[in-house]
């Protein structure tokens, strides 16, 4: 009987479409439906030079906005003024999806998209400025994966933007080259800011707080390019202690809650002049792909380099943190080494290194992990031997590496 009633109700509801003309989407008001139609047409008709203005107000949409033109600007009246809400989205899954170069998006907000908030694939010369992406229900596994997500792109500037509540990474730059992320704010995401398989990135003057992990520099296997040459500096990375709400298997699900800055399997990474505080697993973690749960032979490109190499850490201001690591193994390790009330040193290294290429028992000079950071301590967790022989000896980290060049984005820096 119930199913019959259901059919009847559905048929009654469907009567709405049995008249001519475009139907009004179920979840939208007439005004929002009209706004969406007109905005969709602007996206369809956009040409180089087109400026699409998003007026102030909260506009409900139920379908992704897709752009396939170069040279377009999308501009709102402010990140708290012009709000595109995808709470009722039925077809997407992104909020805004862009395939285009010479693209600028500024001064608007994207809320509650089912998938990524803003995804830009295969673009060159991208500017994302004053954009706020938020999942307004707070951290939830059902939130979209990425807030601001340029991928496979070049010459990217992300500034004065923010992401809240992404179930993977808030600001996530993947498989790209020449990137600046600055003056952004990432909070309540699993990963705040993530630079992945990207070549030449500068991440500075950002705030990452209240995430599971603050700022991540990762290399994943099987992708179009391995990343290297990322500078992380002048950021404030504190209290990233939010319990992870990533689905298992997601790339960031291996990040323990309470991680400040994490380098995984990446190389030529320079971390300096940051304020990193009160991240309860560790303020800074250096690790290899083996410390994630995903390593297996058949599924990983044999050319993939799982080791972090040429990591240079200096002149950061660390405080607090390391006092309540996430996960049983790390908790046990912490208590065993530093006592119930003790804490990990500021820097934790999982201990994996490329044993095939050691010179006098150490990695070649240009591939070492070097630390020049006052009295900041280091824990070698001895991951390769299941944490059996951890050590706090800092001898092997006493070295320096040549400094990386700044990223230049002509006309924008």
């Amino acid at each position, binding site marked *: 009987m119930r*199913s019959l009633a*259901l*059919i009847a109700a*559905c*048929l009654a509801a*469907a*009567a*709405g*479409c*049995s*008249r*001519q*003309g*475009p139907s009004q989407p179920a979840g939208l008001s007439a005004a929002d439906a009209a706004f*969406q*139609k007109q905005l*969709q*047409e602007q*996206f*369809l008709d956009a040409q180089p030079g087109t400026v699409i203005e998003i007026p102030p107000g909260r506009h409900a949409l139920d*379908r992704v906005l*897709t752009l*396939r033109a170069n040279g377009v600007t999308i501009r709102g009246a402010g990140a708290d003024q012009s709000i595109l809400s995808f709470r009722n989205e*039925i077809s*997407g*899954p992104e909020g805004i999806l862009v*395939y285009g170069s010479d693209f600028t998006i500024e001064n608007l907000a994207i809320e509650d*998209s*089912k*998938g990524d908030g803003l995804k830009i*694939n*295969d673009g060159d010369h991208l500017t994302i400025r004053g954009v706020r992406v938020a999942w307004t229900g707070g951290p939830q596994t059902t939130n*979209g*994966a*990425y807030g601001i*997500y340029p*991928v*496979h792109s070049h010459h990217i500037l992300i500034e004065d933007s923010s992401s809240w509540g992404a179930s*993977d990474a808030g600001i996530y730059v*993947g*498989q790209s080259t020449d990137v600046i992320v600055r003056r952004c704010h990432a909070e309540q995401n699993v990963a705040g800011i993530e630079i992945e398989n990207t070549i030449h990135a500068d991440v500075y003057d950002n705030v990452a707080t209240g995430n599971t992990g603050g700022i991540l520099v990762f290399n994943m296997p*099987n*992708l*179009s390019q391995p990343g290297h040459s990322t500078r992380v500096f002048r950021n404030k990375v504190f209290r990233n202690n939010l319990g992870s709400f*990533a*689905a*298992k*298997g*997601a*790339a960031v*699900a291996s990040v323990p809650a309470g991680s400040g800055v994490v380098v995984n399997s990446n190389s030529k990474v320079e971390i300096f002049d940051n304020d990193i505080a009160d991240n309860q697993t560790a303020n800074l973690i250096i690790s290899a792909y083996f410390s*994630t*749960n995903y*390593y*297996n*032979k*058949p*599924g*990983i*490109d044999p050319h993939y380099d799982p080791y972090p190499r040429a990591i240079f850490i200096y002149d950061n201001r660390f405080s607090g943190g390391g006092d309540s690591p996430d996960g049983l193994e790390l908790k046990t390790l912490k208590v065993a080494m530093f006592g119930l009330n003790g804490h990990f040193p500021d820097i934790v290294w999982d201990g994996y290194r490329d044993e095939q290429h050691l010179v006098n028992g150490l990695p070649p000079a240009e591939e070492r992990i070097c630390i020049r950071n006052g009295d900041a301590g280091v824990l070698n967790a001895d991951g390769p031997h299941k944490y059996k022989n951890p050590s706090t000896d800092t001898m092997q980290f006493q070295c320096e590496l040549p400094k990386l060049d700044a990223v230049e984005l002509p006309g924008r820096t």
Partner: protein
Amino acid sequence: MDCSDGRRAPARAASWLVGALVAALTIGGCARTPPPAVHFFPAGRPLHLSDWQVVFREGDALALNRGVVPFDLNTPLFSDYAHKLRTVWMPPGTAARYSDSQTFDFPVGTVISKTFYYPRAGRGAAAVARTYDQSRDFAGSGLDLRNVRLIETRLLVRRERGWEALPYVWNAEQTDAELARTGDEMPLVLVGDDGTSEPFTYVVPNENQCAGCHVTNLKTRAIAPIGPKARHLNRDYAYPDGVQNELAYLVKVGYLTGLPPAAEVPRAAAWRDASQPVEARARAYLEINCGHCHNPTGPADTTALTFDVGTPPDRHLGVCKPPVAAGRGTGDHLFDIVPGHPEDSILPFRMASREPGVMMPEQGRGTEHREGLALIREWIAAMPGSCGS
């Protein structure tokens, strides 16, 4: 033979004038004048499907104009159980060039249509049948509107600059379809052969979403047809003048040149044909449903996961491959495919989802494709090997 049947005579061989004359004679018994020929618009977006005169309402049927040739694919894209009438038309004197592996090279002026429709499943307009039975769909080579409800007709039009996509949505009276550049939505209820029912929202894509599937190369960003490839068309079709191989038929009516001997033409598996190997059926299914994005140059080129026909059956196909940007789409699983274990694999999990942000494909689907999912699970369950560590 009724009027529409006679008109649509595939006699395109010698000359169009003669063909038209023959057609006119055939319908001598009917009082109506034959409709104008297919109208190719080299630019612009005609507001009505009828402007093109490719398929149109005639009596109780959706009729095909003369020179408009229907075709099917060995394994089609799943679109919420919609049935599809696909047609192709080319200007007189032009033909497509055969390719072994790529979409045929069609001449400027080609109009490909795909009409999405459902067999009706009751009195209400929203009740449509979830069935693979097409036996009541047709009236001649057109559709019997006493039995089916037309939803939308999408045109792919080959213009001087390239292909363009134009979506048209059928009106409630089923007399014509209107241009719907920004797409449309309609609530429908799928009624199964077993009497169960499932409400869902049918989503007509907007023009940009058309490109979401039909731009298979991000570098060129060019729209292209997906189906008209040798391996998909290498099958039989019940034309009014008998059952024939589709490729041979296209040659016969003058629409295709360069077709090699039959033995040299590739053939994709028919996904529902249980007499064919599960692996071939699964690969054909994944290619047509996923390969337009998941190929080395497609929009999913960021994922390291490919389903095009050339993908080797290893990590590139997802075997033991960790996800890259799946987010919660992992469903708490670690690898795209775990051999022998569909229940631990991300691929069938995402196919089973109807939630944007989790489900795959990302668009064109608001229901679960039960039979397609069962095939992929069967394939993974039978896959040898393990991911080990």
